[in-house]
């Protein structure tokens, strides 16, 4: 299992070399969106309208942070459970997004879209919100402020630690890892 340091936006060249189980330190700009924001973003894409950010090569982080303490760019910011975004993610990948960060398993449609559009599903450690929040050096709400914690934020990350769960070759770390350690009677 290899270790990489990557900077966004990601290219197909970046994503194709990654394998399930690899660890990556992400740098650069990423965007936050959860359930309600995804619904709106996908509606825009399907109507052929512009998104509030450049989707090409983008990485989307499924997170709803805590309010920042005075002087901090953001509060605690660990991943939320990803399956709730399953119905939206294939469309995001189809239009050029290259990565997603969340936690928990994805459905087959998302895994297939990762193969078809050179996308990666990264897992971050759920419940490590204080640690992950510190890897975010700036944050700015760029759309849907009325959604509160669910607003779309443009954030800058420095050495943000993630693990490749679903790669562009159809591998799934959750399946592979579990098969390796399952004890059958």
């Amino acid at each position, binding site marked *: 299992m290899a270790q990489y340091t990557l900077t966004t936006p990601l290219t197909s060249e970046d994503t194709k070399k990654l394998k399930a189980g690899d660890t990556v330190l992400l740098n650069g700009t990423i965007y936050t969106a959860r359930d309600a924001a995804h619904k709106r973003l996908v509606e825009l894409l399907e109507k052929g309208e512009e998104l509030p950010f450049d989707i090409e090569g983008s990485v989307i982080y499924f997170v709803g*942070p805590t309010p920042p303490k005075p002087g901090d760019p953001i509060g605690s910011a*660990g991943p939320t459970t990803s399956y709730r975004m399953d119905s939206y993610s294939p469309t995001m990948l189809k239009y050029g997004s290259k990565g997603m960060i969340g936690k928990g398993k994805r459905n087959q449609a998302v895994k297939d879209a990762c193969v078809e559009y050179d996308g990666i599903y990264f897992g971050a450690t759920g419940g*490590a919100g*204080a*640690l992950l929040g510190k890897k975010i050096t700036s944050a700015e709400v760029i759309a849907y402020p009325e959604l509160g914690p669910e607003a779309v934020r443009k954030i800058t990350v420095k050495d943000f630690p993630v693990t490749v769960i679903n790669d562009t070759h159809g591998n799934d770390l*959750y399946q592979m890892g579990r098969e390796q350690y399952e004890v059958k009677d």
Partner: protein
Amino acid sequence: MREIAYEDVVKAVRDMIVYCGTDLPQDTYDALKKAMEEEKSPVSKEVIRQILENADIAKDEKRPLCQDTGLAVFFVKVGEDVKIKGGLLKDAINEGTEQGYKDAYLRASTCEPFSRANLKDKIGYNLPAIIHFDLVEGDKIDIEYAAKGGGSENVSRARVFAPAAGKEGIINYVKEVISEAGGNPCPPITVGVGIGGTFEKACISSKHALFRDIGSVNPDPELAEMEAKILEEINKLGIGAMGMGGTKTALAVHIESNPCHIASLPVSVNVQCHSSRHTHITI
């Protein structure tokens, strides 16, 4: 009749919430450390290392352990010889909850079920708290608190079995629920199992079982043995920390059992994530 000032309850609740937001309880921390040492998968071992580093950062810098700071859940035992002076006990707990969530910069996560609109501007910051009251002998109030996140709540299940299902049926059911949950509830988890009573009694018991300190032994030897058996079975599933494959899927299984109807065997499985934020105070 002993009188307790309304403000004293508000402050006690507020302090518990602020503490749990940033300080992982010692029992949880110790259990995670032991799990990290025993974990066989290097990937899961690294995940648990990050979880412990996160706990250290949260404690030192007073940052929330997790962005999901939960719904506030309370089990309150009220002595029959206690009177709250200056207001209702329920209001004091809600007021303390609101203050604690605001003061510690915790997330307000309560919303209307259909519109999904956040309720913080309508009825208060992360209100209403979920409160289970019980009346007991004496002149004290005992308040147990836990922050309950959404990811682990979403995989929780309940079912009423026919009595013939027995112990084996219960063990298989718990395994099935945890297997299906995979990495979603943020393992290594604590599993609360409520057995018996009525449908809702089993559910509430499974929730209360999560408030017990990890590493404590069930005083009922039969249940203690069953807890050990279920824990062993769950850790054979291979799910591991955050579902990445490993030998430490659960830190503990806690069972609470109640007498039930001759026709029924209710079973509830309530899951808590690795960030088991719980504490209690007696006033």
